[in-house]
Every structure is written in structure tokens, then in C-alpha cells.
């Protein structure tokens, strides 16, 4: 068993410690020296602020959609007597299987700038002017990123909520029915409070996933790590690591970005858990 624990330490713990050390170093091939906080000082630039802001915005938008919306969907699907529900669940789940590269390619083709591309066509029927979604401006570009996340992850969250719903004792609903509680009362006073562990779990995952986003913008803006996007809206923190660390060869600087990212994620998660009263250890 020991060898596996060793490899575990080599591939996880060593890189983690190494990131911390590298963030205080300047690394040029063949020579590495400590430069104190210089990397962090260098990061006080508009690009870094932009990257943090974009990652933050993207995370918030995806949480605002992907946490609440799947709840009513799961509640509606949570009726085993309707055999069609299993099919609907699978249909919502299939986008999860599509890789980010393929998903990005499809999105680019569906949302192409050409007025006769399908999304512009449909919107045209509704009287909306055609727009260049991918390159046209930061609002539509961010909408594409969030839309892609919604398409890919709604099904997973529905599945999580469905398994959370299985853990709610049926008697609670029966008791509420006897008391003559309305459907909305049951939803807000039984379902939502008892789904709280699932909600906390999914919010935590979404924070980690949202701040780690990079591949989506890499694909939508052709490998320019978000640099080719309108107003740099696709430049995320991981994108900035890639840009500086790999394409720019500044690995110390890249590590500093990584460490800041890690700290932000930790702080936001703790704030979130606090908000939900997770640390109060109340009986859930």
C-alpha cells in the first residue's frame, strides 16, 4: 500500500507545495531565484483584475441559474409512476457526455454571426436583430459561456436533486397533506429545506468549477486563451495561468495566479457555507 501513498504524495502534495514555492520565484530555464513578493506585485495589473472579475462573474451567473432552476425540474420528474420521466432525465443528461471541445464547436456553429445561422434565424422570427454572438461584444459572449454551462450541467444537477429528493421521508408530505398544505407551501417549507445538503454540495462544486473555467473560452475563441474574445471577456484566471505560465514561460508568475485563485475559491466557499449556516451544525 505504501507505494501508492508515495505516488499520491508525488503527484498531489508535491505540486501543491511546489506551487507555493514557485510563486515566490523567477524561473528561467537553468536558473531559478527567489524574488520575494515581486510576482504578486506584478499581478496588480488590469489584466489580472479583468481575469478575476470574469471568473467571478461567470461563477455567479452559473450559480444563479444552475442551483435553483434544476430544483423544480427534479421535483416534477420525481414521480416513478410516469415512465416517461426516465426518458426525460436521460435527455437532459446527454449534454453532460459531450466534451467541451465538441460542445464549443456546436455552439459556435449554432450562434454564428451570419443572419441565416439558426439562432439568428429563430430570433429574427421574434423580431430580434441578428448579432455576432461570439465576437460581437462582451455581453453576448458571456451569455454564450453561461448558456453553454447551463446546457451541459442542468442534467447532472437534476440527477443530484433527484437523489436528494429520495432521502426526504414521504410521511412529511402526507402529514402536510392532512393539514391541507398547498403545493407551494410543501415546496418551500419541506422540499427546499430538506434539499439543503444537496444545495450546499452543488453550490460548492459550482464555485470550484466556475473559478476553474478555462477550456470553454479556449474553444470559443480559438486557443487564444480568452485573449481573442471581445473586451477579453473570455480571459479567466486559469486562462491567465495558461497565458503567462505556458505561452509566456513565466512559471513563477503563473503559480502566483494559481495560488491567488486557490485562496479566492477557499474564501468564497467558506463564505457560502457560512451563509447557509453549515458551520452552525443545526439539525438538517
Amino acid at each position, binding site marked *: 500500500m505504501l507505494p501508492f501513498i508515495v505516488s499520491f504524495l508525488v503527484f498531489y502534495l508535491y505540486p501543491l507545495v511546489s506551487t507555493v514555492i514557485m510563486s515566490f520565484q523567477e524561473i528561467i530555464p537553468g536558473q531559478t531565484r527567489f524574488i520575494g513578493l515581486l510576482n504578486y506585485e506584478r499581478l496588480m495589473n488590469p489584466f489580472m483584475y479583468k481575469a478575476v472579475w470574469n471568473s467571478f462573474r461567470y461563477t455567479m451567473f452559473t450559480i444563479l441559474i444552475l442551483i435553483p432552476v434544476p430544483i423544480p425540474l427534479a421535483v416534477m420528474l420525481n414521480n416513478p409512476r410516469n415512465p416517461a420521466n426516465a426518458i426525460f432525465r436521460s435527455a437532459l443528461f446527454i449534454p453532460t*457526455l459531450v466534451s467541451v471541445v465538441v460542445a*464549443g464547436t456546436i455552439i459556435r456553429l449554432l450562434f454564428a454571426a451570419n443572419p441565416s445561422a439558426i439562432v439568428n434565424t429563430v430570433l429574427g422570427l421574434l423580431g430580434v436583430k441578428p448579432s455576432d454572438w461570439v465576437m460581437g461584444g462582451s455581453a453576448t459572449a458571456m451569455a454564450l459561456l453561461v448558456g453553454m454551462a447551463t446546457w451541459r450541467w442542468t442534467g447532472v444537477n437534476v440527477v443530484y436533486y433527484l437523489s436528494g429528493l429520495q432521502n426526504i421521508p414521504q410521511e412529511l408530505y402526507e402529514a402536510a397533506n392532512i393539514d391541507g398544505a398547498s403545493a407551494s407551501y410543501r415546496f418551500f417549507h419541506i422540499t427546499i429545506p430538506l434539499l439543503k445538503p444537496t444545495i450546499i454540495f452543488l453550490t460548492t462544486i459550482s464555485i470550484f468549477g466556475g473559478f476553474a473555467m478555462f477550456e470553454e473560452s479556449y474553444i470559443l475563441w480559438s486557443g487564444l486563451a480568452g485573449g481573442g474574445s471581445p473586451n477579453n471577456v473570455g480571459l479567466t484566471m486559469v486562462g491567465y495561468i495558461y497565458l503567462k505560465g505556458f505561452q509566456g514561460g513565466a512559471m513563477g508568475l503563473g503559480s502566483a495566479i494559481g495560488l491567488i485563485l486557490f485562496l479566492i475559491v477557499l474564501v468564497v466557499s467558506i463564505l457560502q457555507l457560512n451563509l447557509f449556516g453549515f458551520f452552525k451544525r443545526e439539525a438538517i
Partner: protein
Amino acid sequence: MKSLRAAEVRTQILFSLFFVVLSLLFLFPVYALLLASFRPGRDLIRFGITLKTLLPRNLVLTYLANLPTAQGGVYPIWFRNSLILVVLQTSFSLLFSSMVGYGLGIYQFKGKNIVLGLVLLVMMVPLQILILPLYRLLIFFKSMNTFHGIILPFIVSPFAIFFFRQFVVGIPLDFVDAGRIDGLSEVGIFFRVMAPLMKPAFGAMAILSALLSWNNFLWPLIVMRTKRMFTLPVGLAGLLTPYGNYYDLLISGSLMATVPIIIVFFLFQRYFIAGLTAGGIKG
């Protein structure tokens, strides 16, 4: 009572109608990709997917048929690379993670809680911030542009270790004791007694690991340097440039990279759901 049931049926029909629309909306992009695979890639890149693309008429099979030979037959190589990596990564990760998880679940030893704490700690660290040190490590081991370079960081997955540990803790220790009485070695107990009991856990983690490996993008993008070593996602992403000439390969290749997972999904749907909800949300 009867009217109550009639009301329920009515709601279910309404819900179902809503979900038919929603499901079609969610499946639409996949349908669009399917139809796009029968159209010239150059037009698709220039004009996007149009209404004409989506009508199942005048389908041209050439682009899919050319897939094995286009651009010097590079697509079958990417496909093979992805397949090799899925098999290697999944089997190594299952073997090692299950053994570590088993060890943490069954044995009492000094520092056990420290190891468990470390597992939980690294579960909290996004892999994206470790790529720079991992990249240096690969250069140090001279493992750039190799299969093992891709797999090494993933042969022990903290998530899988934790999952196996939780599963093992739920199995009564009597089975281990019975194995010892029968004179089996500790390794023998693991393979002959416990592994069969852990089958559902293996199924769930195998599916999850295979899906993650097949769709893995960022790490292979960094490790693989030559075209013949690319995986499907890396190869396809490389075709997505404004100056490319191989858009047919991009579109029909995207379809053929997606079809296998959808087939596997329908074959093993139960494990998919189990693997994804394995996060241990209970309490």
C-alpha cells in the same frame, strides 16, 4: 379520491408536455451536429448551422466516409490514442484508488487519519492550479509527449480513494476475518473476498473515470506535442482555427467522438447515475 387521481394524471400530462419541449431543446445541439456531419465543413464555418443544414435532405456521406483517410489518416490515430488512454487510466486508477481506499477503510495504522486528511485536502485543490508544477515534473521525468505522462497524475484520484473508502467502511469486517481464517493473504483477501463485494463501486468509478479521461482536454493539450500523439479533444481543437482547411474532419470527427460515449451511456446508465451522485451528499 377518483377526482384526485384524475387531477394527478392531468398534472403529469402537463409536466410531460413541458419536458418533451425541454428535452428537444437539450437534444437539439446534438441533432444539429449529426446533420452537420453530412454537410461541407467550409460552408458550416462560414455560414454557421442554418435551417437548410437541419432539414434531413440532400445528405452527403462523403465527409463521414473520408474520416479514416482525411489528412493522412490522422483521425483513427487520435481515436486509438484516446481509447488507449481511457483503458490505461481507468484500470490503473481503479486498481490503485481502490487499494488505497480499502487500506484506509479496513486497517488501523499510525498516521491513518493524517493520510485521510491529506486526501480530503487535495480533493479541495483544483487540478488547474497544479498544472505548472506537474508540467515541470514531467519535463524532469522526460515524460512529455508520452502516454504515461498523461496518466501519471491521474493514477490515484483523491475522489475515487474517498469513494472506495466510504464504500469499504460499509462492508462488515466479518468478511475480512473469514478470509484470514481460510488462510488467505491480505492481498488474497482484497482480490478474492473484497473486490467482488465492491463491484458496484468499481462500476460507478469505472464509468466516471472513463468519461473524464475520454473528454480530458487541458492536460493532454499541455503534454502532447506532436500530431500523432494527440487525443481526440486535442486534435479536434487544433482544427478549430480560422485558417484551417480540415473543417469536414472537425465536424464529422466531433460526431464520431461523441457517439461512443452516448452508446456507453445507454448501456450502463445505472452506473453513470451512481458514479455521479457518489459524492456522498447524504448528511
